[in-house]
């Protein structure tokens, strides 16, 4: 029954291909639209050009939104990874009274509509006297992203045999040495993928940024504002550039994973 027939295999392959096409179609459309010369999008595209990229690179405001997005994403990724590293140990490694509740509470922000969470945070910020700004956005992002990072690292923690930590302690290591010499190196792949996914999720976030950045603006917010005020081909151009940035970050992650696997295999 495990030997799936050729026609069935083909059918399943088609299905997956269709879903992938469905998932990537809008992104391909964006890339294409960014190279269209005319101000109004029309298909088939009459004339290709890169003038909108020139516009984007020349725009000082877009450049500053880019920096805001980058700074927020880097800070969110760093803080989320540190919190999530410990959070994942509590989630998957240690047995303690309250763990089941903690696991479930951690899932709630992921299982909650981001727009509603963003609005609740907006209310909360004004109630406690915090002016919305990019710093507030870092906090807002963390509420949603740190639990996800925790899950990513927790999956790695589950496959980690606690006996290794016990062995290190038995061999004379202190708690801190055990963490540094055994736990951290073994969990590195999970930590790196946790960091990267936190960065990328923050980079792409719109609903939380929208209600927390105040006068500061991120790239997804700029895109939303442009859509409201009228389409310009700068939108697909900026979109293509942010997608490119995400691809580069993922490729770097893939390269790191490849290097790590090689080192584990003793090839490097």
């Amino acid at each position, binding site marked *: 029954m495990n030997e799936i027939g050729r026609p069935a295999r083909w059918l399943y392959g088609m299905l997956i291909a269709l879903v992938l096409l469905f998932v990537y179609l809008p992104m391909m459309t964006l890339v*294409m639209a960014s190279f269209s010369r005319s101000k109004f999008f029309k298909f*088939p595209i009459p004339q290709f050009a890169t003038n909108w990229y020139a516009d984007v690179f020349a725009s000082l405001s877009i450049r500053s939104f880019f920096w805001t997005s980058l700074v927020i994403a880097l800070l969110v990724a760093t803080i989320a990874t540190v919190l999530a590293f410990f959070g994942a140990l509590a989630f998957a490694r240690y047995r*303690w009274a309250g763990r089941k509740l903690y696991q479930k509470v951690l899932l709630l922000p992921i299982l909650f*509509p981001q727009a509603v969470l963003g609005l609740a945070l907006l209310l909360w910020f004004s109630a406690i006297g915090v002016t919305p700004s990019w710093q507030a956005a870092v906090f807002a992002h963390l509420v949603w992203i740190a639990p996800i990072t925790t899950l990513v690292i927790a999956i790695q923690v589950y496959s980690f045999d606690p006996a290794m930590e016990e062995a290190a302690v038995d061999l004379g290591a202190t708690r801190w040495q055990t963490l540094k010499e055994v736990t951290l190196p073994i969990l590195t792949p999970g930590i790196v993928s946790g960091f990267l996914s936190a960065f990328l999720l923050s980079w792409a976030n719109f609903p939380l940024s929208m209600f927390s950045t105040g006068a500061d603006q991120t790239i997804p917010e700029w895109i939303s504002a442009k859509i409201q005020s009228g389409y310009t081909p700068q939108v697909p151009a900026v979109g293509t550039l942010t997608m490119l940035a995400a691809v580069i970050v993922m490729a770097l992650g893939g390269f790191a994973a490849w290097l790590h696997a090689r080192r584990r295999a003793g090839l490097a």
Partner: protein
Amino acid sequence: MAQATGIVTITAATTARAAPEPSGWRAWLRQAGVLTALPMALLMLAGFVAPLLLVVAFAFMPPQSFSILQPPTLANFQEIFANSFYRSFLASLYLAAATTLICMVVCYPVAYAMVRVFGRVAGVLALLITAPLFVADNLRLVGWMLFLVKGGVLSGALQAWFGIATDSMLYTVSATLFGLVYTYLPFMLFPMIMGIAMVPLEMREAAFDLGATRWQVLKEVDIPLAMPGILIGALMTFILAAGALSEPRILGGSSVVMIAQDIQNEFTFAQNWPKGSALSVLMILVAGVLAVTLLRRIDLDGIFGRR
């Protein structure tokens, strides 16, 4: 050397044992699990629990007030139901249910194929499905807008290559639903993949060996054992879709108003925090009841840890 280390360990252990045992909550607080959970727990308290409690408190304040120190009232809820503001809420629930159903039907065979048929490249496929989550959802919806708009990729291609004239496919309820299915598909697919991967191959083989047909294996073994994953996927899709903001705006035009849009209006333009809060409470109730009911029945260690 080895001996010396051994002595050190023993001494350390003895000292630890000699220290007076702390009792009650102090002992609990000293556990490694509690200590490591603390930072995340504080973040959840300050960033999730407290804001939602504040929202709940505001929902019972008189309309237009900006403080929670007034006498509580049900005025906001009365207004929501009297002036049919609940319509956006019902529309959200309806669209979320439809999204969940469509995603479920589409994702099961896809997840099955990814785990059981193309298991060798499952990692690559999973990455390909995740990658779009790293692109802002409103940007991807703009992509769909350009694809579906009159003169866009679809209607332009039909016109230019086949001579078929079509109208705009945007700004309808169906376009909103389409956008919701698109955005939340990965949220259904992922847990489903995890759920299906949790079904041991031997269980299916045993059922088959005991005489079950493929359909019976699906009904008796596959679906019940993958249920935790399916339920988590359904829950996530439903709640996230119910609180969607960008889809009805970018693809739906103003054909349908969903609850998140109403909440946003009250909080920003209308500056009526209590009413926005009351609408949010409806959302929190739905999400909370569903999440709590479901999470009670599910062992998260089993799903994430494959134990």
